[in-house]
C-alpha cells in the first residue's frame, strides 16, 4: 500500500477548483501517513495541468494524454483508475464531489469493492482509516462515518476545504500512463456540450444573489442579476421562483436544487423554507432582504433589511459600484 491518489478534474483543459481543494486535503492525509501524494491527470494536451498539480502539492502526477480521454466519460476513466489502483496500491483516493467526480468514484468503488465516503465536508485519518463528516438529509443533519479496508475513497464537497496556494518552485515526477480502453470499446459517446455562457457557476461562486417568490416574475430577476454582476457573483433562486417558471432549474438552491456554500449569500424575496435553508445555511455571511420581518430567512442571516427588494437591490448595486469602483 502506498500513496494517496487525487483525481484532477478538467473540462476542455480548465481544472475544476475543487480538485485543488482535494489536493490540499490529500497533502494533509499523505503527510499524516508518510506516503506520496499522486495526482491523476487525464485528458488531451493536459501536460500543463500535471505541472500545476505538482505546484498545488502533488509529489507525482500520472498523466494519460489521449483522444479517448479528452471529454470525461466514466467507462475509460474508471477503467484507467482501476488499473492504476492495481499497479500502485494506493491507500486512499480523493476527488471533488462534482457530477463527474461522483460518477467516477462511485463506479470505481463498485469495481474494486472499496468503501466510499461521499460529499464530505470534513476528513481525517484516525487509526489509519478515513473518517469523514458529511451532510445527510440535505444538510439538516451531519453524519460521522468511517471507512474500512485496504483502499478507501472520499469525494469532497466544493468549497468545504480551502484552496491551497500554489508553489511554483515545487518539483515532482511526471509519469506518462496509457489508457486501457480503445474508442471502439467505449459505449458512451459525447456528442457535444451546450455551455451556459457568461454565467458564474453556482457551486464555484464566492458570492450568490438569489431571488424568490418576492421577485414576482421573470423580469423581477433583473435587479438580482445586476447586483450579482457588479459583485462578480452567480444568480440563484428558490424553488418557488423555479417552479413558477421565472428562471431555469439550473439556478435552484435548496434541497432539490444545488447545495451552495459561498462567502456571501444575498437572499432577496426568499422567505426561507426549510428546504431552501438546507441548501445555503453553510454560507459564510448571509444577507436577507424581505418585506416580511417574520420571514424565517432572518433567523440564519447576519444582516437583514426589512424592505422592498426592488428598492434595496438597485440601491445596493449603486453602493457597490461606487465603493468598488466598478
Amino acid at each position, binding site marked *: 500500500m502506498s500513496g494517496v491518489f487525487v483525481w484532477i478534474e478538467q473540462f476542455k483543459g480548465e481544472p475544476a477548483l475543487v480538485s485543488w481543494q482535494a489536493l490540499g486535503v490529500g497533502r494533509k492525509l499523505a503527510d499524516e501517513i508518510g506516503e506520496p501524494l499522486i495526482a491523476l491527470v487525464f485528458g488531451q494536451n493536459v501536460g500543463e495541468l500535471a505541472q500545476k498539480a505538482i505546484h498545488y502539492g502533488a509529489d507525482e502526477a500520472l498523466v494519460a494524454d489521449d483522444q479517448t480521454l479528452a471529454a470525461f466519460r466514466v467507462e475509460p476513466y474508471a477503467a484507467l483508475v482501476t488499473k492504476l489502483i492495481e499497479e500502485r496500491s494506493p491507500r486512499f483516493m480523493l476527488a471533488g464531489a462534482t457530477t463527474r467526480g461522483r460518477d467516477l468514484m462511485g463506479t470505481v468503488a463498485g469495481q474494486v*469493492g472499496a468503501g466510499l465516503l461521499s460529499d464530505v465536508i470534513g476528513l481525517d485519518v484516525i487509526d489509519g482509516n478515513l473518517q469523514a463528516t458529511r451532510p445527510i438529509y440535505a444538510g*439538516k*443533519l451531519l453524519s460521522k462515518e468511517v471507512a474500512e479496508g485496504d483502499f478507501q475513497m472520499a469525494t469532497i464537497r466544493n468549497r468545504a476545504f480551502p484552496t491551497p496556494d500554489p508553489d511554483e518552485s515545487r518539483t515532482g515526477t511526471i509519469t506518462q500512463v496509457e489508457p486501457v480502453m480503445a474508442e471502439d470499446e467505449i459505449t458512451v459517446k459525447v456528442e457535444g456540450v451546450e455551455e451556459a455562457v457568461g454565467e458564474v457557476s453556482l457551486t464555484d461562486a464566492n458570492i450568490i444573489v438569489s431571488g424568490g417568490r418576492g421577485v414576482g416574475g421573470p423580469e423581477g430577476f433583473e435587479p438580482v442579476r445586476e447586483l450579482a454582476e457588479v459583485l462578480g457573483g452567480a444568480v440563484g433562486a428558490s424553488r418557488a421562483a423555479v417552479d413558477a417558471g421565472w428562471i431555469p432549474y439550473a439556478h435552484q438552491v435548496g434541497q432539490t436544487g444545488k447545495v451552495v456554500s459561498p462567502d456571501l449569500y444575498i437572499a432577496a424575496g426568499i422567505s426561507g423554507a426549510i428546504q431552501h435553508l438546507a441548501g445555503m445555511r453553510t454560507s459564510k455571511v448571509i444577507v436577507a432582504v424581505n418585506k416580511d420581518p417574520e420571514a424565517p430567512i432572518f433567523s440564519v442571516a447576519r444582516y437583514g433589511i426589512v424592505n422592498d427588494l426592488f428598492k434595496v437591490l438597485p440601491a445596493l448595486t449603486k453602493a457597490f459600484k461606487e465603493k468598488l469602483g466598478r
Partner: protein
Amino acid sequence: MHVVVFTKSTPDTAAKVEVDANGNVTWGDSPLVVNPWDEYAAEEALQLKEKQGANTTVIAVGPEMDNDALKHCVAMGIQEAVRVWDDALEGSDSLGQAKALAAAIKKMGDVDMIITGKEAVDVNSDAVILQAARFLGWPVLSFVAKIVEIDPATGAIKVERLVEEGRETVSAKLPAVVTVVKEINEPRYPSFIGIRKAAKLKIPVWSRAESGRARSEVEAGAAKTKVLEKFPPPPREGEVEIIPSDDVEEAARILAEKLIEEKVV
C-alpha cells in the same frame, strides 16, 4: 422494453429532521414520501410506457418503510413493485445494497433500463446505483435532464445531461442506468384508481437468497463504511443585525461597507 424505477422512502422534504436521545433519526409526525428525485424517474418511466409500450417495475432495497415509496409509484401508474430485503441487509452499506439490487435486476432477466433520481436525499448519495451499474456492467447516464430518443430496435439511447458547465448530449446503448434531475419532467399526481390499486397491493419481498447473493457479501460485517454518529449541524452564531431602511440608499451604503469590511466582497 422493461424499465425499472429504483426508489426508497424518505421523510417529507418539509420535515424537521432531528436526532433523538438514542442517536436515532426522527422526523416527528411528518409522512414518509417517495425520495423526491425518484418521482421524476417514475414519471419518465411512465412516459416510456405510454410512448413506447415499456413494461414498468419499481424496486427498493430496504425495510418495510420503503413500501410507502413503492406504493406511491404504483399509484402513479407503475405496473409492478418488488422489495428486496432480509435481515442480512440490516446495517449493510452501499456496496451490500448495490449487490442485492444488481442481483435482483439479473433475476428479472429482461431489464433494459434502471431509472432513478440523481441521489437519495436522506443519505445524500448516489453510491448504490453507481455501484449496482458496475456490478451489472452497464453504462451510467447520470444527471439526465432530457431523454432525447430511444430506439427500441437497436437499444440506442441519446440523452441531455446537466453538468457544471451546461448541457451535455451523450449517446449510449441499452441496457443502461439513468439518473435524473428535476428538470426532466413534471411528475403526475397518483390517480384515484392508482391509489386504490396501491392500497390493495401486496408487495412481494425478495430475500437475499432469492436474489442469489451470499449473506457474507451483503451483511453489515462486509460493509466498507460505517456510520459512527449522526448529529445536528452547529447552529449559526449570532443574531441577525437589522439595518434600518427608512432611507434605503443609506441602508445600502451601510450594508455595503459592512460586507467589504468582512472581506466577503
